[in-house]
């Protein structure tokens, strides 16, 4: 599994951090997403896919 994030689209909602804190964080100064792990282990797939599905800016892409 590989993940990319679109920093320009990110609206700082923080849903990804709430759902998968092992994979996502936010910059302290403007709330924009930080991708901690672009290729997380398979056991995190459900959380990562959930985070991508609920992102209000559709800023997370997950590739198999």
């Amino acid at each position, binding site marked *: 599994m590989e993940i990319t994030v679109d920093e320009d689209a990110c609206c700082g909602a*923080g849903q990804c951090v*709430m759902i998968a804190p092992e994979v996502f*964080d936010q910059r302290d100064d403007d709330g924009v997403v930080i991708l901690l792990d672009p290729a997380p282990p398979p056991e995190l797939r459900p959380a990562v896919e959930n985070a991508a599905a609920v992102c*209000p*800016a559709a800023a997370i892409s997950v590739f198999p």
Partner: protein
Amino acid sequence: MEYPFTQPSALEPPAEWARLRDECPVSRVRMASGDETVLLTRYEDVRTLLADPRFTHNLSRPDAARIADSESGGVFNEASLVTDMTSGEGHLRWRRMMSRSFTAKRVNALRPRIEEIAHELISAVQPPVDLVSALGFPLPVFVICELLGVPADHRDRFAHWSDAMLNLTKFKQDELDTAAREFHEFMAAHVLAKRDNPGDDLLSELATIVDAQDGRLTEVELIITAQGLLVAGHETTANMIGKMVAMLLADRSRWEALLADRGLIPSAVEEALRFDANPNIGIPRYVSEQYEVAGETLPAGTTVITNLASANRDGCVFADADEMVLDRRPNPHIAFGAGPHSCLGQALARVELQTVLGVLLDRLPGLRLDVEPAALRRREGLVVGGIEEVPVRW
């Protein structure tokens, strides 16, 4: 068709939503002002327009529809609330500056304090009680006041100013004018006082940014921001606490499922947000360029109302859309909007709702509605929706 539509009861959606999603996804409705708008009810149509960075809720242009029955047309039409920070690059700069105060990390750090406030409020009352006035309204006000650095002892005045700002049909013009003037004067004076006596709060921080005079924020923008945050942090979560608890108690097996498994709290909060049949009248968009939606062409200058609550019940996106499914996952509801203008405070709202629900389950496991769900009364006459009173016992 007159809009908003009538609900069969406070927790049930108007029948028109399902019919329009099926038969007429781009429909014409008449607002309280008498002006006509275009109403969107399907998830994809609503989400796509909301997320389109070309358009905003700013209806101050002369050819935009007025929403409320007042002179200006209400909060979306008010030209004095529009600045460089409302749209485009200016909005992005403003948003990034504000977002630091509403990150997941920052709002998660508020959980212990929110819990403490919830415990204090619950300890102060005996059953039977109205959950809205005992907990729903005071809790978010205390939280946003602490965050902004505004004393919460003015909260009765805040509630009135906030209602006036969100007026649809409730207030007369002179009441609106007085409330707008008082609210502005209060906030302007309060921001000045912050400069003499700064604290560890958001308004003090923003006042410093204004004083740097580097183009990031003007004094006018600061006051509009402070008013906006106070109103937004106040009405929406406050109403949602009452509605969430009412929805969970209306079918008590929902409450019992949460008592049996607290791990359901986060997904139950999301489902309550999705299932809310009375969140607001929808979010407007002024479509400033020709726009295609569901096979129709809207000319430039059209005012569109996106009905988020109808979108959240669209069976094309949500299985069993008319059922409250407490462990629904994923739940891509758009109760907070979508795209660059989606709710700035959504992480805070989630933490408040999750925390309040957790404390209620711990403290009042025997909680139940003291009236039939059908007897709950809607708050009327504002652009946001809620329930007047949620009478409970335990």
